[in-house]
């Protein structure tokens, strides 16, 4: 068995071909919300978007949010998701006060940092393998309104990126960079640096930006291909921008949530997403090599994201977020070529002592996984014997 939330993991971490998936979206009730303290208890199938709908009008925000709000609380815990504010707030697991874990033998445990703390640390980032999270209690954080005061700065090199990260670290809560992974040679490492803070109340209209029609069907071929993406990237990089503006949080955090089925743009063969983290010392060198490899392989990468993680010790045994630099790239699936490229990226990541993010992964090898997550054997001993996943079977060879 494996719990299945809203299925926003990119690869097979939420799939279980040899077994059953438990549709956890039925666990979609709020249990209690204290609007004075921001403590929220809800069932694990509640989406972050639903939490924001309820809590933001009362002045509370999700403490850590990934690039989509359409993930369940259970999924956020199981992948220990991170966001643009990792350098400040750490990962999602750092803001979970407790949860109830249900095992296939019927036992139920309340887990927190002080009670069943081993189960707590195993389940955060534990990819759903320790059991089903029935409900969780979260500490939301205060926010004056739906606006984000956001600034976008062009940078021409990785050095400039790291410098911008360094100076923005203390004054900005949300920091991320879009990087042009098609730019090679002298232009390698150019991109757009985005930083922001919550805007004062009333800074933006509470109405969310209008959603587009979405992608109604899968085109017979990928629309994401090199010549088009090069032109797009070049224009996007050069597009004139106002120095600082207030925008709605949905436009700042969840631009893709507004394009239903955006993944269809990659055509019937789909795409791979590759996200890795490399330690601080290796950061600049490894990122440069990864970008060089991606640009050389001629694989159009749609959206590439670069961020410096903060100095927070991981919340769970298998947490991906850790001190270092993280780079995320998309690659249209061109078969063996793409897989070979991803293997090459693995080598660069491993030689730098880094790790590849399971929530995005569909193909990493057991070697890559065990190097990135040395505590996996500890998790294996806490895995529910009735639970497994495609990913776990692939990277550990263990399963039913």
């Amino acid at each position: 068995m494996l719990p299945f939330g809203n299925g926003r993991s990119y690869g097979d971490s939420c799939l279980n071909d040899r077994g059953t998936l438990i549709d956890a979206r039925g666990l979609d009730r709020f249990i209690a919300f204290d609007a004075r303290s921001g403590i929220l208890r809800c069932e694990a199938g509640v989406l972050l978007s639903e939490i924001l709908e309820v809590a933001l009008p009362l002045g509370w925000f999700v403490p850590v949010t990934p690039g989509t709000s359409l993930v369940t609380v259970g999924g956020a815990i199981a992948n220990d998701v991170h966001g643009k504010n990792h350098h400040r707030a750490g990962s999602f697991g750092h803001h979970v006060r407790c949860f109830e874990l249900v095992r296939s033998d019927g036992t139920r445990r309340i887990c927190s940092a002080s009670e069943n703390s081993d189960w707590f640390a195993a389940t955060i980032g534990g990819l759903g393998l320790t059991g089903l999270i029935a409900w969780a209690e979260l500490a939301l954080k205060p926010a004056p309104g739906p606006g984000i005061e956001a600034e976008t700065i062009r940078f021409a090199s990785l050095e400039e990126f790291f410098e911008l990260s360094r100076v923005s670290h203390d004054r900005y809560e949300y920091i991320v960079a879009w990087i042009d992974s098609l730019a090679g040679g002298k232009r390698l490492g150019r991109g757009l640096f985005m930083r922001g803070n919550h805007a004062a109340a009333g800074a933006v209209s509470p109405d969310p930006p209008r959603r587009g029609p979405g992608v109604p069907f899968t085109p017979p071929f990928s629309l994401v291909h090199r010549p088009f993406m090069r032109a797009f990237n070049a224009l996007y990089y050069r597009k004139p921008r106002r120095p600082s503006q207030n925008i709605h949080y949905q436009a700042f955090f969840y631009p893709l949530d507004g394009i239903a089925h955006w993944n269809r743009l990659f055509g019937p063969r789909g795409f791979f997403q590759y996200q890795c983290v490399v330690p601080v010392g290796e950061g600049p060198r490894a990122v440069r090599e990864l970008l060089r490899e991606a640009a050389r392989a001629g694989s159009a990468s749609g959206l590439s994201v670069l961020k410096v993680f903060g100095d927070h010790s991981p919340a769970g045994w298998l947490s991906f977020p850790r001190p270092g630099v993280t780079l995320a790239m998309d690659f249209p699936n061109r078969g063996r070529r793409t897989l070979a490229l991803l293997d090459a990226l693995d080598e660069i990541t491993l030689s730098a002592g880094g790790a590849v993010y399971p929530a995005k992964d569909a193909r990493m090898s057991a070697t890559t996984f065990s190097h990135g997550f040395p505590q996996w054997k500890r998790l294996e001993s806490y895995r529910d014997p009735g639970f497994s996943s495609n990913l776990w079977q692939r990277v550990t060879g263990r399963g039913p």
Partner: protein
Amino acid sequence: MRRILIVGATSAIAEATARHFARDGDALLLVGRDATRLPIIADDLRARGARNVGVHTMDINDLEGHGAMLEAAQSDLGDLDCVLIAHGTLPDQLQCQQDPGLTLRELNTNALGTIALLTVLANRFEQQGRGTLAVISSVAGDRGRQSNYVYGTAKAALDTFLEGLRQRLHKAGVRVLTIKPGFVDTPMTRDFEKNRLWATPEQVGRRIHRAMAGGGDVVYTPFFWRFIMLVIRLLPRRVFKMIRL
């Protein structure tokens, strides 16, 4: 802020609709048979913004209990702005065919109990001179069909009762809303195989919420059922009795 009584509040469609009421900040009284589930749903609605949410346990077939329930509504909410009647069971048609007692019990649950309650509510609302009575019927009431005519009978009875009530109460400024869902994926239909025609409780709940706020007398949801049932109703009986539906 409206004061809304929901009968059959543990139903998936009622819960989905109630979430919209909660977001609107309405005051609710949830009525149902299951005393354990009602408070869980109440907690959820409270967190989502309902002004206050009360619960009351009652079985529609316990006609004497209707009075106590309406008193609870009066003390909890005061005068009602809306009532949503959403309870129901899905009779096992084949079993009913073998068992007249079961057939009559299903008709009680799905039609007569509701009609008894509506009789009292109609008088109250007529006196009030305002408000909305919304009842979840079904497309099944549009024409008796081989596969579910016991259920269809109950819903057809409701439809006719509501049509007469609508005509009467319109003069008093009271709205009577008949909601006719088609196939909906809920615990009640768990054993059915689902296809593209099936709606989710969320879709139906959204539609009911909109209908209760806006206009409309008889609402088919999703909309295309109005046309499907029109065709089914227009089939000549000669043909209809030959097919299996």
